[in-house]
């Protein structure tokens, strides 16, 4: 038991928290943006897989790491556009379309990977993003290695939280997006086009999700393998509810979640005699518990999942 507490005082645990949180931050921001505009995007698990594959593949074929992230974002945007076309102008079930996107995007990612990459006994690797010390502050004891010695995509994720929070809360564009999720008819009465706003939000949100997936292959690991997203997308969907659709709370949720994930990983080795699967279950159980705790108070966007058709109420 004292081992379990000792672990909490270990700097490497805390340094790994932000790293583990990064794909979740991107994913939850992307899902949040879609849902704020009124579109549930259950394609996230597949879009993250597609991002993980395409970002990795671009780097493997010789592109710089940052270009890899951009390619991943582009592929995610294309998948998002597909989901948006099916659910916004056509008004198809967002649940079914999203699941279809997840199945399609992950199958396509695996197919293209097998088609384009020669896989031997071991999956081929790339040179991933390295930790980047922020000059001046990375030498601060304890805090330095925890906050300021991360890889570039982690800083990008934190930057994206700030941008998303600012845009949604303080800009006319953010107001339009939030209004579209609450009452698209009122948006139309303002002379704006709710259909375009929804398509735009889903495309940008999906691009963010894909970057979260690409973090896995360009930073956390250096190769791509089937099943690597491991439900992170679904956990992001749960985190959006936990965050009650606010970017700041989304960051807190992702970090909290990552903390428990990092902690259970270390507990596995510290506590013997308990099956390791119990520890691996913890993140999923935790997501369900979090959902139950906040479900009653959740401020769901009023028009979430309601297809918008002009002149039809």
């Amino acid at each position, binding site marked *: 038991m004292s081992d379990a507490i000792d672990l909490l005082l270990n700097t490497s645990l805390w340094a790994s928290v932000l790293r583990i949180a990064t794909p979740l931050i991107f994913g939850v921001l992307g899902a949040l943006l879609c849902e704020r505009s009124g579109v549930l995007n*259950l394609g996230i698990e597949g879009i993250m897989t597609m991002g993980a594959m395409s970002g990795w593949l671009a780097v493997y074929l010789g592109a710089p790491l940052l270009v890899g992230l951009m390619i991943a974002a582009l592929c995610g945007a294309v998948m998002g556009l*597909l989901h948006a076309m*099916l659910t916004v102008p*056509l*008004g*198809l*079930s967002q*649940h*079914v*379309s999203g*699941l*279809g*996107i997840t*199945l*399609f995007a*992950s*199958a*396509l990612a*695996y*197919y293209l990977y*097998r*088609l384009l990459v020669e896989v031997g006994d071991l999956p081929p690797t790339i040179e991933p993003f390295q930790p980047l010390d922020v000059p001046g502050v990375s030498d601060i004891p304890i805090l330095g290695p925890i906050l300021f010695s991360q890889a570039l995509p982690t800083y990008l994720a934190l930057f994206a939280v700030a941008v998303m929070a600012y845009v949604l809360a303080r800009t006319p564009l953010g107001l339009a997006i939030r209004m579209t999720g609450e009452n698209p008819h009122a948006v139309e009465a303002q002379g704006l086009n709710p259909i375009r706003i929804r398509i735009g939000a889903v495309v940008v949100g999906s691009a963010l999700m894909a970057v979260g997936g690409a973090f896995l292959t360009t930073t956390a690991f250096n190769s791509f393998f089937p099943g690597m997203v*491991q*439900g992170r997308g*679904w*956990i992001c*969907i*749960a985190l959006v*509810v936990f965050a009650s659709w606010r970017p700041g709370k989304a960051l807190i949720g992702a970090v909290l979640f990552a903390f428990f994930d990092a902690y259970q990983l270390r507990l596995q080795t510290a506590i013997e005699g308990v*099956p390791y*699967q*119990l520890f*691996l*279950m913890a993140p*999923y*159980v935790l*997501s*369900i518990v979090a*959902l*139950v705790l906040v*479900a*009653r108070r*959740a401020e769901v966007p009023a028009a979430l999942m309601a297809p918008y*058709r*002009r002149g039809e109420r």
Partner: protein
Amino acid sequence: MRLERRTYVPLYLVVIAPLAAIITALLLAAGLIAAAGVNPLTAYGEMLTGALGSRLSITEMLTRATPLILTGLAAAVAFRARLWNIGGEGQFFVGALITAWIGHSLGVPGWIGIPILMLAGMAAGAALLAGPAFLRLRFGVDEVVTTLLLNFIVILFVGLMIEGPMRDPMAFGWPSSVPVSGEYRLPDLIPRTRLHIGLLFAIAAAGVVWLILARTVFGAETRAAGLNASAAAFAGVSLPRTIMGVALLSGALAGLAGSVEVMGVTAGVTTTMSPGFGYAGIVVAMLAALHPAGVVAAAVFVATVFVGADAMSRATGVPSFIADVIVALCLLTMIVALLFTTYRVRR
């Protein structure tokens, strides 16, 4: 362009829409096959003969279709009432797990033991979906996420059981549970093939589900709840009771799929025994437009793609993931096709 709801749906559209969807999906996938440097016509030819070309391949295909019929029914029943049960995979595994667990040591003859094991599998699946249904009804927790996360939890639990209490010491270190005893293995439907009488159970289940949905009050309430929940509640349908009933039926069907798969094919449980039967069930249900009779046909189609794609992959070198791509494309084209059966396009 705008969409206008059709007042009546002509029969020819109901037949043509799924076919058009499948053809479109096959055309789209042809581009990906061509990208692998293989003539799509050759590839599809290999796929067809690989799944339907010999007695053995047909029985293999039907063996694969059996759990798909049941998971497809599970998804169809739930989706009809807008209960988004995405946990078919988890329910399949608990059904399989309980069957292997009890079936190893149950001391009764086969003719009574097999029904007991099937009921146990159904109960386990139903119980697993009852949780998320309860959370939705009581706390308003979206069942999509809870059922999905339960899939991961259940598969980890299966891993825990087969490495621990249910470990088969005879499996030479390969993680598998102890097998069900021989008298509970389902008899072969055709000798010297893997096809077992579970196929008949699955088809019978489709008939029963059709009867329940089309001919009972519960079926009518299910449909009403799915079409318009508030109107149904206004008309006196108890939504909590209906949703819970749907959950139990859906979970039981997926659990039965796992139970039948263990007794008919694998004997023991492994974490890899399902190539995504639960998820493929969702596609089967959509291809069938959520109709129980259509589920049987859709399951046969999806099984043909899966079994055929393996053979095609061996013959031509096209990655076998093409099967998942085709099936997912079918789902996407099908929902668009269904749109045109309920709406017409006006300029």
